[in-house]
């Protein structure tokens, strides 16, 4: 079960940053096929997430992301790191 706040925040970032309709933002949605992003968008997404949530994602981690669920998990893991200050307010 994902942290609801993380899910809401990531979805909000995706909706605002990439104008993706809310009903498409389901955990199993793949970034490229279902959400229509491409590899350049993936880099923008990385930077956008970092700036909006206050996380620092390394390049290798983001390359492994395939679905929205992967992003939720990634953010949750980063939030669990000692000293992490994640911004989850919308």
């Amino acid at each position, binding site marked *: 079960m994902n942290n609801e706040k993380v899910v809401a925040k990531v979805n909000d970032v995706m909706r*605002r*940053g*990439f104008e993706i309709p809310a009903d498409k933002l389901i955990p199993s949605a793949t970034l490229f096929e279902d959400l229509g992003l491409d590899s350049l968008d993936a*880099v923008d*997404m*990385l930077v*956008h997430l970092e*700036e909006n949530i206050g996380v620092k994602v390394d*390049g290798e981690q983001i*390359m492994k992301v395939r679905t929205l669920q992967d992003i939720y998990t990634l953010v949750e893991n980063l939030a669990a790191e000692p000293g992490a200050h994640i911004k989850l307010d919308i």
Partner: protein
Amino acid sequence: MKKYDVVIIGSGVSSLTSAAILSKKGYSVCVLEQHTKPGGYMHCFSRFGERFDTGAHYVGALDRGQPFHTLLTYLNAYDPSVFVPLDPTGFDVFRFPEFEIQFPKGYAQVINVLTERFPTEALAIQSFFSEIQTAVQCFPTYEFSDETIDQISVMRAIETPLSVVVQRLTKNADLQAVLYSYCTLHGVIPSDAPFGLHAIMMDSIIRGPYGFAKGGDAFTETLVRAIQKNGGEVHLRKRVNRIEIENGNAKAVHAADGGRYEGKWVLSGCHPKHTFQLVDRQEVFSPAFRERMKNIKETVGIFGIYGLSSQTHSFNPLKNYYYFSNQGIENAFNFGSPNSKPSAAFLCPASRTLSAGAEKFPFSLHAASPMGWFSDWRDSSFGKRPDDYRQQKEVFAEQVFKFVGEYHPHFRESLSKYVTSSPVTNLHYNGSEEGSSYGIYHSIQNTGARALGPRTHVPNLLITGQSTLFPGILGAAVAGLRTAGHIVGIKPILKELKEIKLANGC
């Protein structure tokens, strides 16, 4: 209306390098330059009977078979009369409050000089330069390798901060300061700077440092001649004000004089922020991308002084001079006011020949300064800026003179004439909103996976320039190679470059 394979916006080193490669490969290219002469930051200007360079100070890797020599040879743009080898016994002079170091040409020589100055740090010095040489090997567009890229080594080189490498090797603050000196050439502080970027800078300079015998303009001309010989076109006084988008692709480029240039590809060497502002359908960019571009950090603005000093015996025209305060390079880009002393300055001879008995030494002198000091005048017209702008420049110029005077007593009194440029001047010439010389801040955050270009969200619009790879003349040229490679395929070009390199004994 003539249609081109590639329409290129701007004629800086990157754009011209791309144009030379593409035209060599048989593509029809058209370069559009807004100014009256090509070259971008290679521009020279004349004052007081001397020629002054704005950005062309010196370049590395230019010995036979080295990367820049190889690339220019490939482009049919290598003219030895354009360059002059700098003093091999000491081409870069680093002045610190307590000591001075001169870098001679060659790794062994630099290591010797540093070991003599820091005898207890011999192992650290040896290790540092060994790591530099290892790091540069993993960049195929620098070493011209057509083999498969070792992604792990590349990642390590660009995600490790320079400060981490240096602090792991030595705790000696003076040695650290020396190893960080070239941060002034990319404008990124050691804790943000990718080690790989710093490594390429140092490697190229140490191996083959050259100045410009006839200024940056002469270098530009060799590239333009090569392009024209290949059938390419370079048009001046063509200020591009729009990139026309049709069905998500770039269709044509519009100039302010009404000219319209259609291309299968559009390639821009202008600052990325400026390039994206030219796109007439901003909806091709996601809000996330627009936000990213708005927030992306720029390297600091640069202030320039171009003058004549009577201290002809204090300077060698075949050396460059770096001056540092005790503030430390980590704090070099934190500013007080225009009325405070800079923490670093760079002086470059404007002419690489100085005849015996010469009475004047022409130089350019640069120090970092934020756009904020001059932002009141950013919308005033070039050449028509008011007196208070000039007064503001004078305030900082005096501080720079005072700082250099700590190393060369009476430097201020030795000046007969000078003119100055500010970040606002740079904005006019290179479109950097911070008046920077190096484009976007080449930190780890903006490098590697997060780097801009050459691809953009418009499939047939590519960007090039020092903001897309690494700064400096060599960085710009390699960026141009990489962007052209995106159109024609990089591997065959790298193979040809490798053959030239090998044929020249490297």
